[in-house]
């Protein structure tokens, strides 16, 4: 008996999926449902649906620090603390930055979660289709490379993804934001309804306001419960009411009995076989024991998040691929993009003092892109959309500064005297070759791996767009009758939108792109990359739904090719 042969057999699957987040979960579901025996590798801990959502049912007073971070958490999480997502209630989801450092040639806020489910547990759930405008912009204005697909190629896969995960929303017949298969929309509140009516009248429907399209269920769907309007999605949902790997794709994949999930498995590199010119598997570092091991498969899906996947590919060097797997084009690691946001305007609404909200809607409004289309011309390329909403919070402008005592307490126990309405822009960033990541061998992570260096910045097109993101918001709020309208720009650095994309782009030409139109590597045909790294441009819509659709489409193609014996 040959032990080595046995071990090899034991570690061999039909397919390996690297990563268990939004796109990895989808790959696991699709490949197992199509009959493949799949190993899904996740670098972090296991998270069991519901059981491991530790803070999900806690009341505010059950948190020791009222939701705030300790100095120790700030010390160990110097990047994760740069913005709001990491707090006492969600601390489990975010990485200890000291264990996995990276080099910032320019400031880049890299938010990461190492656990089964990845960022599908923490995502914002906004789910929008890209339109042909988005797929054609690169070709039209010459930035980046042409998308190898158009809307018709992905449209049936958007249908497929939406139907499975459940997206609530409203069809609007808006050219830049294709309609979809939606569960009943959540309600706009009274102020948002008024703002919608007045904006659409003012601009003669050349701008529209709709309820956010969100992967939160408004009715039970595929065995999952509907949203309970707690607005605590960021802790994990015990009702399974928003899409995550755990609530949605993982149960489907597990039901096939063909999925093996291995947590604490850091994929260090993809093993390339120079004879077959294919990937034969992956080398894994066990995150708990630091042992290394190999797993083998006929196809490898790389879904480790944009920069995670790009690291693995850059780190997979061989004689045939000296600068990273499938990097003959030299584009691997380049063209890094993220949305730019954190600017817009706010105002207060008068005349709604007799209205309040019941329930907490984990969703807002959406104004899809209307710039640089038709007669709307700007002095920059592409455009932006708005997210926002109205609320009656607990801010009391009549309270004197630093007030205290009985009257103060009583006032603070009442809702705000007026509603406020905010619009925050979400802008497209152009692909720039010089915005890049590369491997920095001068540093090591906790597991002895080199680290990623990130050299990325917004440029003039983004800066010009931000002016309009403020001004248009202020104008619309004024047109909608809001008072005390204030525009703001709270500064933005790449990474903050947690929509990093583009570092292993798709394209028709192997000389200028890493992946073909099926998310298949031009140079290594049994490797597929279907997370955000594949995106030749990022539009201004939230991208996760597109990753899901592209993943399902790529899986369909990969299995067909496998069955034909082509890979």
């Amino acid at each position, binding site marked *: 008996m040959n032990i080595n042969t046995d071990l090899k057999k034991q570690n061999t699957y039909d397919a390996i999926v690297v990563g268990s987040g939004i796109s990895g979960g989808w790959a696991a579901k699709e490949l197992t449902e199509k009959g493949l025996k799949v190993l899904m590798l996740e670098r972090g801990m296991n998270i069991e649906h519901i059981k491991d959502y530790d803070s999900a049912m806690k009341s505010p007073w059950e948190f020791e620090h009222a939701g705030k971070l300790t100095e120790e958490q700030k010390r160990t999480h110097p990047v994760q603390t740069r913005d709001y997502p990491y707090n006492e209630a969600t601390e489990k989801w975010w990485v200890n930055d000291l264990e996995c450092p990276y080099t910032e040639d320019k400031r880049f806020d890299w938010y990461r979660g190492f656990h089964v489910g990845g960022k599908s547990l923490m995502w914002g759930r906004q789910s929008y289709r890209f339109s042909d405008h988005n797929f054609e912009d690169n070709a039209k204005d010459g930035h980046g490379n042409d998308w190898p697909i158009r809307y018709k190629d992905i449209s049936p896969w958007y249908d497929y993804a939406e139907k499975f995960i459940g997206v609530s929303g409203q069809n609007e017949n808006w050219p830049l934001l294709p309609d979809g298969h939606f569960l009943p929309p959540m309600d706009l509140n009274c102020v948002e309804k008024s703002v919608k009516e007045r904006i659409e009248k003012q601009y003669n429907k050349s701008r529209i306001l709709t309820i956010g399209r969100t992967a939160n269920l408004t009715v039970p769907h595929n065995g999952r419960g509907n949203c*309970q309007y707690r607005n605590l999605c960021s802790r994990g949902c015990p009702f399974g009411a928003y899409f995550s790997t755990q609530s949605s794709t993982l149960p489907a994949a597990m039901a096939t009995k063909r999925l093996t999930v291995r947590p604490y498995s850091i994929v260090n590199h993809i093993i390339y076989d120079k004879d077959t010119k294919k990937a034969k598997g992956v080398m894994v570092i066990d995150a708990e024991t630091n042992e290394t091991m190999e797993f083998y498969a006929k196809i490898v899906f790389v879904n480790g998040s944009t920069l995670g996947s790009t690291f693995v590919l850059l780190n997979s060097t061989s004689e045939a691929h000296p600068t990273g797997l499938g990097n003959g084009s030299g584009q691997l690691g380049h063209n890094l993009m993220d949305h730019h946001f954190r*600017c817009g305007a706010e105002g207060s609404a008068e005349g709604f003092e007799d209205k309040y909200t019941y329930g907490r809607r984990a969703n807002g409004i959406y104004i899809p892109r209307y710039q640089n289309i038709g007669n709307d011309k700007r002095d920059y390329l592409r455009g932006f959309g708005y997210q926002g909403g109205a609320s009656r919070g607990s801010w009391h402008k009549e309270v004197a500064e630093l007030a205290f005592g009985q009257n103060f307490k009583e006032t603070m126990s009442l809702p705000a005297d007026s509603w406020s309405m905010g619009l925050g822009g979400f802008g497209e960033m152009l692909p720039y070759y010089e915005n890049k990541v590369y491997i920095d061998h001068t540093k090591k992570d906790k597991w002895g791996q080199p680290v990623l260096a990130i050299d990325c910045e917004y440029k003039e097109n983004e800066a010009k767009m931000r002016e309009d993101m403020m001004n248009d918001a202020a104008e619309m709020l004024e047109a909608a009758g809001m008072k005390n309208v204030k525009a703001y720009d709270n500064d933005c650095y790449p990474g903050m939108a947690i929509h990093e994309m583009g570092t292993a782009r798709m394209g028709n030409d192997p000389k200028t792109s890493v992946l073909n139109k099926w998310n298949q590597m031009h140079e290594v045909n049994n490797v597929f990359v279907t997370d955000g790294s594949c995106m030749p441009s990022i539009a201004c819509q939230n991208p996760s739904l597109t990753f899901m659709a592209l993943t399902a489409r790529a899986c369909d193609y990969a299995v067909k090719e496998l069955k034909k014996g082509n890979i």
Partner: protein
Amino acid sequence: MNRRQALKNVAFLMGGAISATTMGVLFESFTVPEKEKNFITFSASDEETLAEFAEIIIPTTTSSAGAKAAGLGAFIPMMVRDCYPAKMQEIFANGLQAMNERCTKEFNKSFISLTTAERVQIVTELKDEALAANKTPSFFIIARDLTILGYFSSEIGCTAAREYLPVPGRYDGSAPYSPGQKAWATN
């Protein structure tokens, strides 16, 4: 137009009740060197003083118990120790001591021994000084902020002062509001 000037209005977005100092400490990031951690310790009588201070900020009223009953006497020093950098801890501790010295000077009594009216007088003096100092970090600013934060996330604050609805089950964005109706405890 002036209104198009970009504002750094984080406080506006988050609700103006809490000071910029607390915003900075609790919501923004900076790294604290290891050796500067846990600068300060608090005694049992400090906790008693802080409980009475907090009770002046948010007193017991007919509708609900106040900050003392909500456990702010222990919450405030715990938060200062765990969540504030050494320099702020020092400002807080020195300010607490200075407040007691002021009580001795003005009333020849410690803060805990003062009548409610005397405590209000002292706290008003601290408030006026904080306003005059343009709200630079001080004991008063930090302790008041933590009182507000702690009280409105305490069980008493959430369920008695405000109304807590853990699982609404539905959303109505145009619900009737009648004057005096309490605010929801969470957003």
